[in-house]
Each structure stands twice: as C-alpha cells, then as structure tokens.
C-alpha cells in the first residue's frame, strides 16, 4: 500500500529512510490538520461557555471515547497524560500507600527505564523488595523465573507488551495470570504495542496500562493511563490543581468525578485531539495489517542482516516473538559510528542503550543499533540500510 503519501515528512524529505519508529512515529496529514485546526480556534476545555470552548470540550471528550474504544475501555477509565512515562510514574505514586516493607514488586530485566525506575524508586521509598525477572538464552522472558519471583507477597507486577530494544513480545497473558493468582496489581507498558497488537484491556484483565500517542502516529506530549474501574475507585490522585476538584475551602478539597479527577491542569488538548485522529487512522488501516507489514519487513531485514559477515542480530530463538523492532551489533564498529554514518546518508536508526541499561548489562553490550519498522517503510528502505552498513564496514575493515 502506498501510505507514504499520507505523511508530509516524506514530501519534504525525499529519500528519507525513517527506521526509528520505536522512538517516535511520523504524523499523517490528518493528524497535523487536526492539531493545527485546534490552534486556529484555541480554547481551554471544561470551562468556558463560548462556542470555541464548548467545541474544544466536545472534541476532547470525543477523542477520549475514540481512544477508550481502541483499548476496549470505558471513557472514565481512560485518563489522558503526557505519555507513558508520566502514566507509569503516576501509577507508582498512586499505589505507594498500598505497599509496605513486607511486599515485593516484580518487573523484568527488559524494561524501558520508564517502567524500571519508578518501581525502583517506589521500592526504595517503601522499603520493599524489587524483583527482576530475567531473559533466557533465547531472548525470551523467563517464565520459570517469573513463577518463582511472583509470590504471596507480590503486590505489583509491571512489564511491557513489546520490548523497545529486542522487539520481543512478552508473555502478557501468562504474567497477568501469575499476578492474579496472588492478587497483585498488574501494570502493562504498552508503548511499543499500540500499532501492532490487539490491546484489549478487558480481555487482558490488566489493572493499569500506559501508552504514548506519538508512537501511534499521534503528537508528542500526550498519552494514556488506563485504570480498571474497580481500582479507580480505590486510588487517590497524585496531581492536584484545576479541573480535578469538586469543592475546596481553605482546609480541604474533594475531587470531581472520573476521569477528570486524574487530569489536573490544562491538558495537552491539541495532543489529545491529534491522538484521537491518529487512532482513527490506525483503525482505518487495521492493526493486523500494520502488524503483518511490520513482521514481513522485519523478517526481510533480519535475513538481510544475517547474510552480512560481522553483524550479530539479537534475534529471539522463537521467531513468533518478533515484532517490527530489531537490534543488532556490528563487529569492531561502535553503534554510534554506524548510526552517524547512516544519518549522513539520510537513514534514521537509533544507537545506544535505548533507555534499557539493565538489559544492555544482561546482553553484555554497551549499546546496539536498533531498527524499528512502521507502515510507511518498504524493502527499498531496508536495502538502503544494509547497503550502507556494508559501505561503512568496508571503511573500517
């Protein structure tokens, strides 16, 4: 499908090979138009009585509804935040009063820092244990390790749907099941899964879920924190200010209804509107088509890379775990040098630790080169990438 023409960035930058979609995805014209349209008639929400304000409020809440439907949640369970990082940090703060030093928190070694550090910090503050589930030699989450670490004292289990570095799909259902057996909260970092997986919070039965708009063709600065209804009623907000209060006097305040209770201050209105439009864009194409395209190209990429001497692809043994993200290293050439040379040739990849330093330690590398594929990539992009890697190898070898 010729989807590239829907993305203005490729008009403005012909020859651009954008393979850094795990960092951020490009925005289609319809999302950009939505954001621009809002700013041409800008108003704050849930406040004014004039037409622009009413219109902005209506569109904001419509966007919430669209986003909620994407994950099969209710609108009141779908809270707009600035992104995955804020969502996960909020969740850690909100659950703090529920934890004590006898409890433990379980995460995995392959988490992004946004889903590692909040729990590390929480366990430090509360004085409880942080347990880290490992990877096996086939780059798969070690379920035996998970089984052993999740016990009756586990209060919370947090993990990703798809690894931002290795691209592996986590055994989400199994991890949720292990957590449910002991009555632990489940938190799912869905940042890398939104374009390629069916993310249905009801089917998954997860308590919390976080994702960012800019990773599914939406604007930056907006994301979602989903909180299951039964849990929502029990937790208190951690961000206070305007829009979230029902009544306040000089001594105390009480909160307004869901979800606004958790949305203090003026949100990223244009971001939320853009995200709603991005979701429509994804739904028009259909996630299974995006996923299928990513997997097809990823397989092509991996096969091409594996044909080249001196390249080691960090590929899971079980190919069914692959998504559209692949990491590799090139013998005797620093990942930053590879990425910079590619950048000089208008090829965009990411090099480094990918905000997953514990994983890098486990893999025994300082960094990798990461290629992450999306709907507008094609075989030519992959061919150009591989050709340029061979070029730089010739310079170094």
């Amino acid at each position, binding site marked *: 499908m010729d989807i590239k023409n829907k993305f203005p960035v490729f008009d403005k930058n012909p020859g651009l090979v954008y393979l850094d979609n795990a960092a951020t995805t490009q925005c289609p014209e319809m999302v950009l138009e939505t954001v621009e349209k809002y700013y041409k008639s800008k108003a704050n929400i849930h406040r004014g009585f004039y037409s622009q304000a009413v219109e902005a409020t209506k569109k904001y809440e419509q966007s919430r509804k669209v986003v909620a439907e994407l994950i099969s949640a209710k609108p009141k369970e779908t809270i707009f935040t600035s992104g995955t990082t804020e969502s996960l940090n909020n969740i850690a703060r909100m659950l703090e009063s529920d934890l004590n030093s006898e409890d433990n928190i379980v995460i995995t070694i392959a988490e992004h820092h946004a889903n590692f550090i909040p729990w590390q910090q929480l366990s430090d503050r509360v004085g409880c244990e942080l347990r880290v589930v490992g990877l096996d030699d086939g780059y798969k989450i070690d379920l035996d390790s998970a089984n052993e670490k999740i016990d009756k004292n586990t209060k919370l289990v947090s993990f990703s749907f798809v690894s931002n570095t290795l691209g592996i799909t986590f055994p989400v259902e199994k991890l949720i099941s292990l957590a449910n057996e002991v009555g632990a909260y489940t938190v799912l970092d869905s940042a890398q899964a939104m374009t390629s997986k069916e993310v249905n919070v009801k089917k998954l039965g997860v308590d919390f879920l976080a994702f960012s708009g800019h990773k599914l063709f939406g604007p930056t600065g907006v994301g979602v924190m989903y909180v299951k209804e039964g849990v929502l009623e029990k937790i208190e907000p951690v961000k206070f200010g305007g829009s979230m209060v029902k009544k306040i006097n000089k001594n105390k305040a009480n909160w307004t209804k869901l979800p606004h209770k958790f949305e203090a201050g003026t949100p990223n209105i244009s971001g939320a509107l853009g995200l709603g439009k991005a979701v429509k864009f994804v739904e028009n194409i259909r996630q299974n088509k995006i996923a299928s395209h990513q997997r097809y190209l990823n397989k092509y990429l991996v096969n091409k890379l594996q044909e080249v001497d001196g390249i080691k692809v960090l590929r899971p043994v079980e190919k069914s775990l692959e998504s559209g993200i692949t990491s590799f290293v090139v013998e005797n050439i620093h*990942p930053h*040098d590879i990425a910079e040379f590619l950048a*000089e040739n208008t090829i965009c990849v990411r090099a*480094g630790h990918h905000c997953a330093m514990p994983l890098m330690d486990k893999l025994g590398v*300082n960094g990798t080169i990461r290629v992450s594929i999306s709907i507008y990539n094609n075989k030519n992009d992959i061919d150009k990438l591989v050709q340029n890697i061979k070029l*730089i190898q010739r310079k*170094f070898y």
Partner: protein
Amino acid sequence: MKNTIYREKLIHRYKNPKNYGTMGGFDKKSFSHNPYCGDEIEVFVKIENKKISDIKWIGEGCVISQVATSWLVGRLKNKKVEHISNITKEDVLDMFNCRINLAREKCALLSLKVIKKLLNAGN
C-alpha cells in the same frame, strides 16, 4: 566526503592511534568511562621539570572519542604541563574539520576532560 567524520584520514587514525599503550613507571594516570555509550579512556603521564616527558593512552569506543584522544595526546607530548590550559573544547572539535553533532560532543571532549583532571587544570 571531506565533511564526514568517516573519511579515510580519520578512520586510519582510529585504526592506528598514536601514542597508544600502557606505561610502566608513570607519574600519574586517569581513567574515564562514559556509561551512556561505553567510551573509555585511560591516560598515563610522566612529568619531568613540569614538562610532559611522556604520555600514552589506551581506550575503546567510537571514532570520535578515540581519534580526539590520539590527537590531544600527540599535542601534549613534550609540552609543559600548563599547556593543557591553552587547549579549549573548540580546539578539539575543530580538529575534526567537520561538524560534530551536539549529541557526539561528549565523545569528542571525553579525553580533554580526563587530561585536564589528570593535570589538575581547570575546565
């Protein structure tokens, strides 16, 4: 090609660094590591009459960090210790004769930082 870091001259220098190796009987040494990217450098100096009579280094990392070190160490050999204070970050960046990305400046300046600390010079 003259504006790329990855031109023959610099890659040759990367593969054949000057003054490379450890030093027995050194007077001072200093190690630095950038955990962000894995660049690391260790520098050894021998000082006689306030002069750097010998200076060597070992390291691993990207082209920018290693070539900058090779160049800087070469600049300092047989110079007075105080000479390091005359070398600025702009001097190091200019050495490459091409634009160094802001994101890569830390790589280029790692050795300057290490050596200034080693010789107790200001930033």
